[in-house]
């Protein structure tokens, strides 16, 4: 099964996401800040990265995603956001941020599973 790194500053979100993804048999590694998250991705070469948009700073998630892409890490990135479709900041997939999909908070477990499986499937097909 897949190895997934989740980076979010809210431990409860990490816990809830791990619980859901573990139940589907995935291995989940978590980090609560961008620096640790970056190291985790470098060390573990996961199959999928889940990133929160806002951590310490409002755009931490974006910067981290950009950093990964600049270093040619092509692992699919799923972004947790609370602003994905709200006014004035509409960004579609890959439009402004190099991520593959968004999940809007609050995270619905079934939707999360669906999107994760979809991205993993795409990666396999490549």
């Amino acid at each position, binding site marked *: 099964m897949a190895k997934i790194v989740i980076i979010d500053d809210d431990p409860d979100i990490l816990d*809830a996401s791990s619980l*859901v993804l573990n*139940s589907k048999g995935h291995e989940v590694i978590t980090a609560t800040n961008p620096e640790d998250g970056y190291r985790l991705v470098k060390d573990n070469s996961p199959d999928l990265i889940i990133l929160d948009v806002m951590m310490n700073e409002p755009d931490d998630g974006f910067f981290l995603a950009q950093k990964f892409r600049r270093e040619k890490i092509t692992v699919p990135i799923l972004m947790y956001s609370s602003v994905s479709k709200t006014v004035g900041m509409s960004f579609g997939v890959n439009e402004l941020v190099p991520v593959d999909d968004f999940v809007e*908070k609050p995270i619905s477990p079934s939707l999360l599973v669906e999107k994760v499986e979809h991205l993993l499937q795409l990666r396999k097909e490549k």
Partner: protein
Amino acid sequence: MISLVPSWAIYYDEFWDAIKRRNLWFIKLRYGAVLMLFAFLVSSEFILGIKFTNTQSIALVLISSTILIYNGILHWVRKFLKCDPIKFNPLHFSLVQMLLDLTALMLVVYFTGGIETPLSMLFFFHMIIGSLILPGAIIYTIAFSVIFLFFIMVFAEYHFIIPHHAIAGLFQAPMYSNFTFTVLYSAVFGFVMLMSVVLANSIAHQLYRMEQKLVESLDQLNAAEVEKQKYVMSVVHEIKTPLAALHSYLDIVLQGFLGPVNEKILDKLQRVRARSAEAIQLTNDVLKVSKLRLLDEIKKEEIKVRDILSSVLKKQRANIDRKKVKLHFKDNRKVRTKILGDKLLLEIAFSNLVSNALKYIEDEGVVEIILDEKGKGIQLEVCDNGIGIPEKDLEKIFDDFYRASNIKSKGYEGTGMGLSIIKHIVEKHGGTIEVQSPSRLASQNKPGASFIVFLPLES
């Protein structure tokens, strides 16, 4: 170079714009003055029975031509001026114009009879305008110089030091050599000029200061509003974060990730989920409104309103079918003009309007959506036969968090932000929204409501 920029001029852009506009205005006015001067020269003999001497005619033609030439030069130089307070700028330009004009006027006055000519009234006109635009010290200096030069001229003519150029046919007896008249006239001339300059100058400065203060307070208000919205957004976001975590846990339990849950507990947890969903909806709505308010400019893409409406109706299809609502969509426009606007925002607005209509319909519901041309824009009407809006609530329904009394008592859930969001979006597009209840679909116990949105073709 002397700085002519007054201390109160803080908002440079507006200040320079005003000065530049005035300079252009003077230049245009001067062309008119030259034209009138020529017309006066040519026609006065026939119409007024005035006869100019040769010297007078030559002098006046020369003066008028000189004015015309320097005005042409000023008109041309004007374009190259930079609004730099320490270099030659439009204010210095105004001063140069003023000095040139006063010199020309002094000569015109001398050659048309000195103290006897009615043209000396034009001095007041010049000085009042100068008082409105130039700093006090400068305009007072000019005023004293004009009065002094005028006195000199009167004195020199009186003592035959310089020749007097009387206008033949205007006055019966020569007045320039009448002592009492010259003294009285000169005194009144000086006094009136000083009074006009002092009054006009002080009133102008008061007005300018007030204007600047107003602009200042407006800026402060806008800045405070932005700060407030940012604060609201950060607070609401902080509230949303724990709510989101809570909600996710609830879903994990409800969707059975932790195994089966007792029916009774499940039932209550469903209620908890519904209420927390309501709170999250509220935080999302507030975030949306705050963002809208912080948005300086909306996108200006070409939009086919009809397409947006179709996509909204498609997304609401399930809702429409579930409530068994009869929906009529009519496009009465002859030409399907596009409007400029933000597609995403308009979709949010229209979607809110339609879902509102559907939400407050009880049974045998009818919703009519009519698109039409109106003035220089389009009109969208969303009309229903739902529960309507009580008359006393009509005024307030567009306010943030306001919910009409009847929907609260009937237990409809909502945040009271929907119409506020719609109104914001419509106004950002330069449009208006009105409400009518009962609507034209009203029947017994079903007053209904009708929302009429006007969007201009170009906002």
